[in-house]
């Protein structure tokens, strides 16, 4: 009896199953369309900028169009203007220089906070973060004057120092978050094996937290690369990095959109790729342990 019954029900079940399946597919399709639309809208300005970089100046200001014959002329022009490479080189030196310096200063500090905590550790960490909340504009004048008197205005050294200090709190924080994930036993085993503090850091801590250190470093590079307040105010020409170069296009006489787009594309491309590759790691450090 039961078998016949189930036979009779089978087509109905199948029909119901198909309907459920179809509505689920529809829902998935809807989500995909929505997700992609949002992503494309958000990305559109960047996409448009990259596209404009391959247009002629005339096409750039003509009615928006996806169809045109791409040209590399702008990239040639931008490279030909000796300026671009100076600015780009300045950006590279300052971003990487300040990041290396910040890591060098921050690693011992984060090590001691993570593995030799005292009653004051938490307070020190919060204080460091609070220095980050000090608006740079509040101290712009003194820094400007100090730099002027020390001859650091418009120098790579000066900008590197500023970026190092600017990023130090966040670098210490992120490293601290990553270091805290390392089981302390491993460092203690090293201590039993006769490792000095420096050896512990070099042979054990650094190799074991390399992904964390790398993503911290990359975030620091990104923040330095994109920093626009100090670079606009403390440099004029000699040491000006890319943000200052790009800003020079805001003046009416600098309005060559296609060239601007080409230069901008070159200015953001390395960091964009960096960011894409390391977003997950980077975010974990940035959540300050709020997300495991």
């Amino acid at each position, binding site marked *: 009896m039961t078998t016949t019954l189930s036979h009779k029900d089978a087509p109905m079940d199948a029909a119901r199953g198909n309907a459920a399946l179809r509505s689920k597919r529809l829902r998935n399709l809807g989500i995909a369309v*929505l*997700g*992609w639309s949002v992503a494309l809208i*958000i*990305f559109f*300005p*960047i996409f448009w*900028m990259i596209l404009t970089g391959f247009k002629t100046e005339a096409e*750039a*200001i003509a009615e*928006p169009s996806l169809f045109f014959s791409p040209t590399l002329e702008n990239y040639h022009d931008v490279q030909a203007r000796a300026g671009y490479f100076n600015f780009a080189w300045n950006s590279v030196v300052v971003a990487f220089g300040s990041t290396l310096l910040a890591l060098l*200063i921050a690693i*011992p*500090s984060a090590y*001691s906070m993570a593995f*030799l905590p*005292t009653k004051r550790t*938490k307070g*020190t960490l*919060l204080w*460091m973060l609070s*220095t980050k*909340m*000090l608006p*740079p*504009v*509040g*101290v*712009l*004048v*003194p820094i*400007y*004057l*100090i730099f002027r008197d020390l001859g650091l205005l418009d120098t790579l050294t000066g900008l590197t120092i500023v970026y190092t200090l600017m990023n*130090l709190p966040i670098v*210490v924080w992120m490293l601290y978050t990553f270091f805290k994930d390392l089981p*302390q*036993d491993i460092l203690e085993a090293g201590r039993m094996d006769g490792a000095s503090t420096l050896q512990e850091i070099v042979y054990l801590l650094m190799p074991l937290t390399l992904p964390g250190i790398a993503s911290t470093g990359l975030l620091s590079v*990104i923040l330095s690369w*994109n920093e*626009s*307040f100090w670079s*606009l105010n403390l440099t004029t020409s000699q040491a000006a990095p890319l*943000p*200052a170069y*790009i800003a020079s296009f*805001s003046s009416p006489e600098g309005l060559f959109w296609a060239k*601007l787009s080409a230069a*901008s594309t070159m*200015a953001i491309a390395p960091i964009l790729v960096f*960011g*894409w590759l390391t*977003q*997950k790691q980077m*975010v974990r450090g*940035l959540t*300050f*342990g*709020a*997300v495991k």
Partner: protein
Amino acid sequence: MNKTRASGRTVGGLRTLSLQAPAVTLLLLWMLIPLAMTVWFSFQRYNLLMPGMKGFAGTENYEYLLTDPALWSAMGTTLLLVGWVLAITVVGGTLLAVLFQQDFFGRGVARVLAISPFFVMPTVSALVWKNMMMHPANGVLAWMAESVGLPAMDWFSSLPLTSIIIIVSWQWLPFALLILLTAIQSLDDDQVEAARMDGAGPIAIFFNITLPHLKRAISVVIMIEMIFLLTVFAEIFVTTSGGPGLATTNLAYLIYIRALLDFDVGTASAGGVIAIILANIVAIFLVRMVAKNLED
């Protein structure tokens, strides 16, 4: 675990001190010297264009600033900018995080596209929006408006602050999305399934399970964004230069105008002190929030 954590505190305060000294000393110098100088200058008559007129000014600079309508307008602009961008990015970021947590075709690529603006330097994004998106004649938005028969809008003159808010939100939305998405992904599936067994629909799950789970991540987003939003500068510098009038002049930009355009160090420093006080009020509130995160 606790017992191993507790251990370190014994091995010697001296070691802790020497390891932390470089970072702490540098930050202390970086903070205190300019701070002291700013406070000092704020009581001085000091204009770089008039070197002969140096001297003690008392509270003159503050009086001048506090009676200057520009200051109040700048403070209002700063708060509006921070408030709107925070609201847009946190709400938008949460919704997007829920969206991008769903599995769909090409999700990884779509997500990477959506977070891209975070990696674009502020001067570039400001220029792109100014020249290619919002330009009244050649911008994409103008073209779109015209193609549906609407008059093209000159964004930066008719809605200057809104335009800035849009640009800054575009830059920070991806950051909120990144952090909140990471947080959502750490949500225990069992919890969601238990709620579903209890008969909760998607909306009930969002408000009763997902949102509470995101609380700490949201507080981190607010904190970090606040640090950067209080000092938005390049976006204004590149697009509106604070105008029209004072419509988009925030505190950071006002001090910049006073110091580097008017060369009035005294007044600029007084503005700096006010900015620092404002930031400290915010910081006290923020640090509490983070300290709570540190607890567990």
